[in-house]
């Protein structure tokens, strides 16, 4: 049984079908990349997996760790280990990242029947994680994403992931808007978090992220369908020939 099993998933937004029958298994320990042009349904897929409202699932199923994921609320999914790194992380003025993360971590710990961490214990967790990832903790004292640069926002997402230790991480265009140095930091952060019991779904437009985070499988999403799957070499192929042929294939 794979960690995530998506079967023939159909999703509509405001009456328009965006995902038109997607099937995909993500096993624990593996990194799957989903590549596709703008408007192919990449972000819709990430939002549906995370449980955002406004998306109508009209067919198919999604199982996570053996349970029906679509029956769970967004917060329940998160507490059970589904993490979404946002393409556009949201600002929460007046709330420090530390406070936000501690509350998030404790919500998950409560769900698992573990004792909550107090402020001091939480600081220790942060120290350990930032050291492991080689990420500085300067962002943690600032209000969540407020006034952060694009690179800082993405770095913060990866740090949040490290602290929440999800079982399934969906990274939505985590490489977008990053310069090469920031891309390197973020990629290193992702690589450091690859582990045998964690499945990762990397959603990206560009191949360049995959130079740093080498996936086990690559899927091409076009017009709401997965039109081709392959090994890491598929990404290089795409880089050369572009998405044009897949768009034709999907339209046919």
């Amino acid at each position, binding site marked *: 049984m794979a960690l995530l099993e998506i079967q023939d998933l159909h999703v509509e937004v405001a009456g328009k079908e965006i995902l038109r029958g997607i099937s995909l298994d993500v096993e624990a320990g593996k990194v799957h990349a989903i590549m596709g042009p703008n408007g192919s349904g990449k972000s819709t897929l990430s939002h549906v997996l*995370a*449980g*955002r*409202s406004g998306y109508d699932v009209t067919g198919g199923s999604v199982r996570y760790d053996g349970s029906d994921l679509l029956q769970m*609320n*967004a*917060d329940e999914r*998160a*507490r059970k280990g589904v*993490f*979404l790194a*946002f393409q*556009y*992380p*949201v*600002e*929460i*003025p*007046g*709330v420090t990242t530390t*406070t*936000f*993360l501690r*509350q*998030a971590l404790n*919500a*998950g710990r409560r*769900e698992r029947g573990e004792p909550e961490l107090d402020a001091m214990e939480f600081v220790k967790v942060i120290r350990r994680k930032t050291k492991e990832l080689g990420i500085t903790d300067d962002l943690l004292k600032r*209000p969540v994403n407020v006034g952060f640069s694009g690179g800082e926002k993405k770095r913060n997402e990866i740090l*949040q992931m490290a602290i*929440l230790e999800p079982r399934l991480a969906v990274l939505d265009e985590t490489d977008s808007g990053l310069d090469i140095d920031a891309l390197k930091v973020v990629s290193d952060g992702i690589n450091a978090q690859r582990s045998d019991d964690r499945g990762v779904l990397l959603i990206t437009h560009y191949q360049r992220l995959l130079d740093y985070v080498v996936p086990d499988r690559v899927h091409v999403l076009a017009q709401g369908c997965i039109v081709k799957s392959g090994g890491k070499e598929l990404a290089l192929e795409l880089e050369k020939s572009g998405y044009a042929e897949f768009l034709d294939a999907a339209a046919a």
Partner: protein
Amino acid sequence: MAMETKTVEELATGEAYKYGFVTDIEMERAPKGLSEDTVRFISAKKEEPDWLLEWRLRAFRMWKTMAEPTWAKVTYPPIDYQDAYYFAAPKTKEGPKSLDEVDPELLATYEKLGIPLQEQEMLAGVAVDAVFDSVSVATTYKKKLEEMGIVFCAMSEAVQKYPDLVRQYLGSVVPYSDNFFATLNSAVFSDGTFVFVPKGVRCPMELSTYFRINAAQTGQFERTLIVAEAGSYVSYLEGCTAPMRDENQLHAAVVELVTLDDAEIKYSTVQNWYPGDAEGKGGIYNFVTKRGACRGRNSKILWTQVETGSAITWKYPSCILQGEGSVGEFYSVAITNNRQQADTGTKMIHIGKGTSSRIIAKGISAGRADSTYRGLVRIQPKAEGARNYTQCDSLLIGDQCGAHTVPYIESRNPTANVEHEATTSKISEDQLFYCLQRGLSEEEAVSLIVNGFCREVLQTLPMEFAVEAQKLVGISLEGSVG
């Protein structure tokens, strides 16, 4: 006239308001209704000197000629002032001399409210005066404060022990003729807190009064007076709760603050009177007059209020900046949910040269509630170089609530600098989803976002109470989303 309230605990389970219980205790009350006899009864009960009775009677006669104000953006059915009790006190033979003599039922009540009055169990560094309905039932740490010359006691006790001080300052900031509710208070006020900090003394602990309305059909009219002599400092906090009842109850308090040269008073309020049920039945009418006079040079008054309770809040803690270089600050969080209404703000009256004021007001509306910021900044002709900065932010939750901002600015001196900023926003769906995706429930998410919105104000609270206030912010908004 003694009567027994036979109410058993009616703690409604599953309700957000956890202070809604009733204490079963024998009460003594004034006859129902309001007349000169009522005023005389209260004054006699307190064994007051003649001048105070005269003052009360002047206020009462004046009140009879006054009309209830209607300019606030609140609506409520007419109040029948004859259909209420104006004095209710737990029955005791004599006033308690020490904590050991306080009725155990009362101690248990405060224990339940999270305000233990036994000194050994008390919050370190906080002295408490507990006011139950119309009287003060206990004051802690009195001895220790007395050694420093600080007076912290019930108003009725101060009238007996420090008549000259009381006479000098009572009504000197809020005169008995001030406004309908303050005048009513002047006639029938029953107790409250008196604080006097002598010259050059820095009060080493937070002083706190905990107001509790218990008796049914009873108004609470307390009067607080704080005087800080030259170079002194005191931080004072009041908290309030009341049982859940279907009727509306009137709370018309008056607070007067006086600071002399270089003195500072920090006055914080966490107001959590019963707000009424989700349909707007019951709840406290909180019609309060609070005003501070910065009489001395470089003196300072800082108001912080967290207003989460009451069916209706009508309250404008103000500063009269007389002393040269004096400073007034007002930090406010007003949360209204369900059918609550709040019309609150401040007045900063700049009289002296180089006076400055700062107003940070955060209004949060949810459900079908209405919240209004109403503020006045007045620069008098002699207030050379006066400065004011005002920031009003409103946050709306849902689409059936309202937020209104009514700032009045009157500048009569061309050298003055007055700034006003205002924003209105909603909790965005993006923010909520971001929090949910990290595992927070919807209620936790709203509480976190709102606490962030209020942070600037909550930070000004004494640390011991900031945590409580943060929790209260979350609880007040329960059921506001989803």
